[in-house]
């Protein structure tokens, strides 16, 4: 068993508005090997993402393992709609950073 950071396994880690009330997160892998490694480690789940972002699970509207793109995707409800006064990330484009340091245990 070795441990790797998600940032070293994924090709793309991003966040972006999905409409005015949600932010969606995409973790995309180069190939099925790394995708399956992360999927089978189960470190990314609805529960773990709620914990990481310190929100109740019902603020996560969707959690999808999307095989055609080797991607894991989840979406959260915003506390206030995008661009409301006080929102410092109108596009929701900088909310993914905490995902990068997630430790993934891998069977060799």
């Amino acid at each position: 068993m070795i441990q790797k950071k998600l940032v070293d396994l994924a090709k793309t880690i991003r966040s972006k508005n999905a409409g005015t009330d949600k932010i969606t997160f995409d973790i995309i892998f180069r190939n099925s090997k790394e995708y399956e490694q992360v999927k089978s480690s189960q470190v990314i789940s609805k529960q773990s993402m709620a914990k990481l972002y310190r929100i109740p699970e019902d603020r996560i509207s969707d959690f999808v393992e999307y095989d055609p793109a080797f991607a894991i995707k989840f979406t959260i409800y915003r506390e206030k709609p995008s661009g409301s006064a006080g929102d410092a990330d109108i596009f929701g484009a900088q909310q993914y950073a905490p995902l990068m340091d997630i430790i993934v245990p891998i069977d060799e």
Partner: protein
Amino acid sequence: METLKIICPNGHLGFAPLKVPSFLHGVEKKPDYIAADSGSDDVGPVPLGSDTSTSPKSWQRHDLEKMLLSARELGVPMIIGSAGDTGTNSRVDMYVEMIKEIAVEHKLGKFKIGYFYSEVEKEFIRNKINTGDAIRGLDNRSDLTLEELDGTARIVAMAGVHPYMKLLEQGADVIIGGRSSDSAIFAAAALHEGYPEEHAYYLGKVLECASFCAEPYGGKETVLGEISQNDVQVTAMHPDQRCTIASVAGHAMYERSNPYFELVAGGTLDMTHCHYEQVSEKTTRITGSVFKPAEEFRVKLEGAAKKGERFIGIAGVRDPYTIEHIDKVMDWAKDQVKDRFGTEGYEVHYSVFGRNGIMGDLEPITETKSHELCIVVQGIAETEEMAEELTMTATRQLFYARLPEVKGTAGSVSFVLDEVLKASPAYEWSLNHTMSAKDGLELFPTHMTEGGL
């Protein structure tokens, strides 16, 4: 036609200029249509609420000019959706005017300009609510109330393919659309030419953001979509970009909460069983999408409500003791605001960059390790005068915060400017709802005019 080719040079026309070389490369492929979307709710509620564009006019004009000249030279239709970021009536008129100006400037021959509006009168919606035809909330929102409707400054409905198809049937050479689903502008062209719905809507879905469906990452480059009776193929026009299975399938989930379904006025594109195939270095082929017509015709509404006039203040902190007690510093300033303005009738927001300025409550890191902080202060009130004084109080009082052990007694923060800056008024998305409609044309009146000499 065996196949139909559409090029898209920009995923949000005006937000940044299209890249000319890959666009001209796309034009060399002799497309049957040139189309781009020009709107997004990503830009926040201010442009819709205040009926302005966030994109500079010179960038909008740059792209319209490039597209118009190529479309007229090829003799093919040009389609623009969601004019001027928001697709309000004033933005449609502005784009129609720009097209006419460009045509005269370049002495283009006569051509037909079709356009349609997307704004919805509040009275129309009020009647719906009063007759029990609920304006249903999306994304966990409740049905729209009359109070929320009253507070809203401006509302647009999201068009599907219908007004575009009507204008194409009437022979429009250029179409300037009000607010519309991004995919509809491309799908309308394909449907107009007799291609099946499932491929037409997928074509729209994959082309809407231009080169975001290609890799490596690089925006504002042209992509070419080609539809047949049996499939869609998409090709990157930039010499270093490719449309791969991963980039195309990955794009299907971009900006969507779910990668399988795309809702448009009149139905849903189901991508659950899509099959992706790399047919050449730069081209991916897609089959297997399904289009399901909606049982009840409903149209999405977007609306923005004004919250007040807004000013911005900026302050910096370098003293480690002050950084450690930054909440106390802000509490002091908030108390001074309360002493002056009471507890209601205004909003003050502090974003503390270097701590959790970007993520707010979503930030998992609770310990501040930065040796300096930047505090952005936003003050919102009904009048400009009050918003300015409010923001000035909330910013300048950071300077006078009384921390018991502080060594620096000549000021708790640094100032880039000893003033506060007038910002756009604060608006909030008040409508993200759907409304019933008779059909896809009811809310979108179409018009025809002429350009050229």
